[in-house]
């Protein structure tokens, strides 16, 4: 645009001449644009729904396969448990099975309260606790940690234009132009030079069609630099329906029941396996609170992670016999690390809908449990304990999220979904032990960062 530039007064006048040039197009053009946009909108929804459906189908197939295999092994184990129960051995005959052994029987013989239990439940000292089995489901989790997300962003250097779209160049940019561009202002006067540069054209014929072949230039359609506002911070609150099992077989004899034989659980098992007197088990509503952070990589997808704190609470009550019953209760606290991939299905300034698929790794940080012995509904004896929780709980979480943006930076969301817990017999008895598939619901607020 300056004297150094190859654009002269002629080009400037041309530019000025056409800068305000306009002409009203036929109204039919807008109708065609509108029609096309409607069709595209339907197609986008269709494709996204198709992707989501395929994804869910794949997930269901995987889940079906997993639980089919899991059920088979679990049922086999259940049979062996019942065989053990049908032919109890005496405590004298019982050999302590190294680390597998839990201290339930020791506790019972050492504590005076155990005598009461023995009276109430004759034969309990002959019971062999359930052995800890191999972690048969571990093999299914190995691949989960291997998934990687590759992120690629394309960044182009944009041309700067004035309000009318003409290119504006800085002095630095002009200095970068090759010397031939800068000095070659008088090309029309130097046809000879042109002949040397492009002999095929000067001869009046196009000998190489490629000289007029064009590639598709589309530098502006892609983003020119990383968009701001790709990060979201969410405060999540989740609660799902609790459960109540009046038939103890639903809790233990269900093939999905799968939990560690910690002292609390072992007593519980003993009650249910040999005396069948668990009247009901009530699982309180699992409660989750946490912070989530989301990173969008494009309009279509993003990833999400965060920190979740979950509390699980269960209480089981034995049948009343001679006005006596025992209540077993536990309270579990988990810290969870979720990681999920988001697929945006609909996105507008106010509303958003997305599909989320991920896994949650939870580490139990504490279990508090109690046993309370009641006579005529009066508490006669109780025992309270608190322990660390070993092992981890892994689950997959598939959810459909709905967002509403109240302002550009603040919004609310609800994310109903389905969580499948991969029971690995390292966790104490809880709501997930009796049923490995649970609905999940997270609601909260989101901040655009």
């Amino acid at each position, binding site marked *: 645009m300056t004297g150094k530039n190859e654009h002269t007064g002629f080009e400037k006048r041309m530019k000025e001449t*056409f800068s305000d*040039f306009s*002409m009203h197009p*036929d109204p039919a053009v807008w109708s065609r644009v509108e029609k096309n946009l409607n069709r595209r909108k339907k197609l986008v929804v269709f494709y996204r729904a198709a992707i989501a459906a395929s994804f869910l189908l794949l997930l269901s197939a995987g889940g079906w396969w997993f639980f089919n295999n899991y059920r088979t092994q679990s049922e086999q184990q259940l049979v062996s448990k019942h065989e053990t129960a049908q032919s109890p051995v005496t405590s004298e005959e019982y050999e302590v099975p190294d680390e597998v052994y839990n201290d339930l029987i020791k506790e019972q013989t050492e504590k005076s309260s155990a005598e009461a239990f023995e009276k109430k439940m004759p034969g309990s000292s002959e019971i062999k606790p359930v052995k800890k089995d191999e972690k048969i489901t571990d093999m299914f989790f190995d691949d989960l940690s291997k998934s990687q997300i590759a992120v690629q962003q394309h960044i182009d250097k944009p041309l700067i234009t004035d309000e009318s779209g003409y290119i504006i160049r800085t002095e630095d940019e002009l200095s970068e132009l090759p010397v031939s561009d800068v000095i070659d202002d008088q090309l029309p006067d130097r046809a000879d030079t042109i002949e040397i540069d492009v002999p095929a054209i000067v001869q009046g014929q196009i000998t190489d069609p490629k000289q007029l072949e064009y590639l598709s*230039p589309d530098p502006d359609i892609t983003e020119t630099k990383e968009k701001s506002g790709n990060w979201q911070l969410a405060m999540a609150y989740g609660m799902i329906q609790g459960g109540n099992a009046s038939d103890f077989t639903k809790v233990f004899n269900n093939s999905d029941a799968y939990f560690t034989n910690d002292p609390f659980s072992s007593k519980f098992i003993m009650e249910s396996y040999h005396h069948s007197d668990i009247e009901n088990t009530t699982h309180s509503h699992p409660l989750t609170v946490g912070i989530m952070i989301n990173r969008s990589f494009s309009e279509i997808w993003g990833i999400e992670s965060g920190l979740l704190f979950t509390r699980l609470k269960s209480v089981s009550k034995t049948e009343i016999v001679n006005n006596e019953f025992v209540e077993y209760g536990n309270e579990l606290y988990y810290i969870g690390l979720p990681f999920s991939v988001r697929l945006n299905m609909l996105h507008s300034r106010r509303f958003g809908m997305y599909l989320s698929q991920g896994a949650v790794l939870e580490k139990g940080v504490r279990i508090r449990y109690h046993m309370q012995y009641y006579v005529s509904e009066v508490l006669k004896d109780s025992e309270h304990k608190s322990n660390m929780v070993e092992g981890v709980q892994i689950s997959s979480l598939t959810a459909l999220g709905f967002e509403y943006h109240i302002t550009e930076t603040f919004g609310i969301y609800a994310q109903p979904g389905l969580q499948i817990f991969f029971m690995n017999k390292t966790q104490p008895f809880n709501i997930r032990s009796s049923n490995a598939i649970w609905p999940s619901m997270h609601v909260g607020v989101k901040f655009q960062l």
Partner: protein
Amino acid sequence: MEMNEIIRGCLDGNRKAQKQFYEHLAPRMMGVCLRYADDIEMAEDFLQEGFIKVFTNLRNYRSEGAIEGWVRRIMVNTALEILRKNDVLKYSVDIEAAKAVGDVNPDAFQRLTTAELLKHIQALPVGFRTVFNLFAIEGYTHREIAEQLNISEGTSKSQYARAKVWLQKRIEEFNL
């Protein structure tokens, strides 16, 4: 309604806002498309495809620059893309070589109305017209045109020079 508000409406998929956006910019963009097209029908095709791209990519628009400039560049790119798809550029005819012609007389161009000048530009073979538009009116350098159209810089320069001289000759004849 202010432009920013219209753009926000467009981003929400609001058809009314999209129509307002279109009505605000379509006449000027039609002016751009006409320079790249043989006739009005072709220009309207460019315009239609260009606006569809604009609406589907509006989320990528960054508000630092003027919206008109952003839309204009999409229109130009769309026109080039369609010309290439239809192989129009590949089989563009050559124009007679212009040798030893003197300086272009700017006055010859100034005596014309914009519409008349547009007619002469449209009469250029499509390859020459494209280079002429990109260089003289959009402000691209020959190096950028060469990169954009996958031709050599020399080709861009020679086509532009010859288009300019060809136009002058034609306009001089027209003025007589």
